[in-house]
């Protein structure tokens, strides 16, 4: 039966050009069926074979029952962004079967659960039916885990057809089950059975395969939330309050997991970090503002709806000059939006969060490794500037596995900023005011609760105050203070991460971007190079706008600002902050909740450039 189907492929008449290490596999399954373990196993095995790989989970806002897709892309050149073409489908979900099949490229491959009774109406693809039900039944596995190990059937069969090393599959299972032999054996048994079945019953007819190489040497696989949490712990995080929200939850859960491992006090053996699940985001932010004010390195992690709830306290923290770090793992809004889809739509809110004149420091990590780096760096910046720092990550970073450079130990000591303890306070001989700009950089000195010097205490407040933290309604006090607050951040952007610029000689147009779109942009740039189009690239890593960004924008005829939101929020901010170059800024906004693709960007730029001629 099977053989007849596959043999009927018209491509069989002409020789098939082999395609090695350059395609994507999408597993279409049902949410909650346990396919994630299988998908991660395939992806990790490929990584261990030395082939650059990424995995993106396109999942519904649902616990069980709705369709979900997991796309694994392998690309020897290291282009790992989402890709618009589907070369291989593993169809496990009857309800999406037809659409999944129809989406395959010509010459594509369809693995499918043979219990799915749907008409296969394409004769330009390769078919590999899989007797999933039969194999699970024959395995004798207990009924409560049958659904889970059913997914291991496709791991074995795909491994055989694509040429994935079985040792690497075993390694991936060992890692996933943290060395626990029973689940490893159970899953491995099923993979092995399926693989052996495939040897006997399937004949490879398609063009796609993998081949071991060494292109993943010097890389690890990790997700952005894990990286951010670890970075924060290496940054000396002392207090985190959080509230569950997709896609930020795993960040706080990772903190919980690693505090006992890495944050025991070397002196007393006790904990040096408090993680607290708050009753809501209103409380989470209140707690970290309290903790930050009392001198702890404090953070929270949330997503758009939570960020909305935090607005008032962030405004207070800005005004009362309390350092706190907020990780916003963006999902698409407004409102509940699409809770399981990625976005860069919170930029405007984050930057101007608070009523009245507020402008916050915003950081944009552009890789998972940078999530780690900004994890610790954000505290240095926040304590140095005594202001909230909002780090904008997103669902794509936060919840997907990325091939990334290993995390690097912080390359400088902690910067706790201008803090006065008893001995420092004595040196000032009483010349201290909490909001007094002694050094002319807009940054005052702060004392912390527990400081026993008489007069070291002050009353922090959201109401008007003078340089000595006394209540004041004097117009001049208000104006002076607000101007200093503005200056404090604007004149200290040197403390913020500088943009990353990739130049091509002779280019007079550019792409400006931030965050998780970097991989797609990198791929697009390589396409532009092949097409002979000269384009420079600047990746912004912080706001307010650095002088390097302003110079860059001014030195190009056209700058395409690429972002995942409707209004081109970064484009708007750059237009405001570089008013003389507004006409040089063009917005390219990608708005469907999916990660950026190189193909989309290339098409957009080509269309816009055509228009310029």
């Amino acid at each position: 039966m099977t053989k007849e189907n596959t043999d009927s492929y018209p491509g069989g008449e002409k020789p098939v050009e082999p395609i090695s290490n350059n395609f994507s596999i999408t597993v279409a399954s049902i949410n909650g069926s346990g396919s994630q373990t299988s998908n991660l196993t395939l992806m990790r095995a490929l990584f261990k074979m030395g082939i650059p790989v990424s995995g993106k989970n396109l999942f519904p806002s649902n616990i069980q029952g709705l369709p979900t897709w997991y796309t694994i892309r392998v690309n020897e050149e290291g282009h790992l962004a989402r890709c618009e073409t589907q070369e291989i489908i593993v169809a496990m979900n009857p309800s999406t079967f037809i659409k999944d099949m129809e989406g395959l490229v010509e010459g594509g491959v369809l693995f499918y659960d043979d219990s799915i009774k749907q008409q296969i109406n394409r004769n330009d693809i390769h078919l590999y039916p899989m007797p999933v039900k039969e194999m699970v039944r024959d395995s004798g596995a207990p009924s409560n885990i049958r659904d889970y190990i059913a997914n291991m059937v496709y791991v074995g069969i795909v491994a055989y057809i694509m040429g994935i090393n079985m040792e690497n599959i075993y390694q991936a299972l060992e890692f996933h089950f943290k060395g626990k032999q029973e689940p490893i054996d159970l899953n491995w048994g099923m993979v092995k059975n399926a693989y052996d079945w495939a040897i006997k019953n399937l004949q490879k007819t398609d063009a796609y395969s993998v081949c071991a190489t060494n292109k993943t040497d010097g890389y690890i696989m990790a997700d952005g939330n894990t990286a951010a949490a670890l970075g924060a712990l290496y940054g000396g995080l002392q207090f985190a309050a959080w509230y569950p929200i997709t896609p930020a939850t795993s960040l706080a859960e990772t903190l919980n997991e690693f505090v006992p491992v890495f944050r025991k006090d070397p002196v007393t053996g006790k904990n040096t970090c408090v993680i607290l699940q708050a009753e809501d985001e209103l409380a989470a932010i209140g707690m970290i503002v309290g903790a930050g004010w009392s001198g702890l390195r404090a953070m929270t992690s949330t997503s758009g709806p939570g960020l909305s709830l935090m607005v008032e306290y962030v405004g207070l923290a800005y005004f009362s000059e309390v350092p706190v770090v907020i990780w916003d793992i963006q999902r698409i809004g407004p409102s509940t939006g699409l809770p399981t889809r990625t976005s860069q739509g919170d930029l405007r809110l984050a930057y101007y969060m608070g009523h009245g004149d507020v402008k916050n420091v915003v950081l944009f990590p552009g890789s998972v490794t940078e999530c780690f780096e900004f994890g610790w760096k954000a505290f240095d910046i926040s304590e140095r500037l005594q202001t909230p720092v909002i780090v904008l990550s997103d669902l794509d970073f936060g919840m997907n596995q990325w091939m990334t450079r290993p995390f690097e130990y912080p390359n400088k000591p902690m910067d706790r900023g201008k803090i006065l303890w008893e001995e420092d306070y004595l040196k000032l001989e009483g010349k201290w005011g909490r909001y007094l700009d002694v050094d002319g950089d807009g940054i005052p000195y702060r004392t912390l609760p527990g400081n026993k010097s008489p007069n070291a205490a002050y009353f922090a407040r959201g109401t008007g105050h003078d340089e000595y933290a006394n209540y004041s309604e004097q117009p001049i006090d208000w104006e002076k203070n607000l101007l200093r607050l503005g200056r404090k951040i604007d004149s200290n952007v040197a403390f913020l991460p500088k943009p990353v610029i990739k130049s091509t000689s002779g280019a007079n147009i550019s792409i400006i971007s931030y965050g998780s779109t970097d991989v797609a942009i990198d791929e697009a740039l390589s396409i532009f190079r092949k097409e002979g189009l000269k384009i420079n690239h600047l990746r912004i890593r912080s706001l307010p706008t650095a002088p390097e960004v302003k110079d860059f924008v001014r030195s190009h005829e056209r700058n395409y600002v690429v972002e995942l939101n409707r209004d081109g929020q970064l484009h708007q901010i750059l237009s405001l902050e570089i008013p003389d170059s507004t006409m040089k800024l063009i917005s390219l906004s990608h708005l469907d909740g999916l990660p950026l693709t190189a193909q989309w960007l290339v098409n957009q730029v080509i269309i816009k450039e055509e228009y310029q001629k």
Partner: protein
Amino acid sequence: MTDQISQTSKAQVNLVGLTKNDYRGNPSSLCQGCGHNSISSQIIAACYELNIIPEYMIKFSGIGCSSKSPFYFLNRSFGFNGLHGRMPSLATGAMFGDISLKGIGVSGDGDTASIGMGQFKHIVRRNVPLVYIVENNGVYGLTKGQFSATADEGLELKKQGTNPYLPVDIAWEALVSHATFVARSFAGDPKQVKELIKAALSHKGIAVLDIISPCVTFNNQDNTSHSYSWGKEHEVALHDLSYVPRAEEIMVDYEDGQIKEVTMHDGSMVILKKLDRDYDPKNRAEAMRVLEESNKDCCLITGLIYINQTPPTLVELYNLPDEPLNRLTEERLRPPRETMAKVNAMMF
């Protein structure tokens, strides 16, 4: 400067060598006769008499008349005036900075019983080490006389008409949220207020003090339950309460069965002298019954309503070093360099 020194040397000092002035704050900008001012005075007196060094205290508030009052006491203590109804979260985070400090939070009925109800219940449930005073006057003062959530049903206010809703009972809310210390008092009974504040400061967990504190400007009509005259006429003390510091002998002799002693964690003692009833503040069901009765009989039951010293405080759950967290240096906060390779190996 010399004048000041000579003045202090003349003034009376407590055991830590401080005068009462060392516990004062800025002059109050609240109305003359406001119950909140009287409570501030009792906070000052209690801290002075307890010989607490002001630098060892930390104070918090939300928004409203009550929340301004931390500016009017303990100038030498750090303080943070937070957001409306969200003092509890602020205090929860801040108390971790240096767990040797004593926290006191002042809120009002507008701040605690409306927007703040959620945070109030959660700080209580978590048993955060904090004295939580609600200066309860049944009315919004700073916005000029609107009903609060604790206003009497049927209360008539000038511009608001008649309040159709039943009031929130702060002590009751605290009790059902598993508060470990619940007291009610009346600003017109300063001695009891002071003794309760002392007891609260000796309690290791959350200590909720619901203090009826009349608003002389907007809600002090004789027939309403938040007024001075109503309180004076209707106050029914559960006991005659006095606080005895550690190492001080109990000098007064009581007849057998007339007193109950509650030993606090710091070794001090709260002596409850029996009045008309035999009241046991360690019985939660009894506490609920008394509150219910008080509402039904339209009287103002005051005193230590409930105490439970068993549950751990929030801070105790975290196994933290004795040294203040906010003084730990980089060597104790940043994992050593050699762990980095281990972390990377834990990834894939």
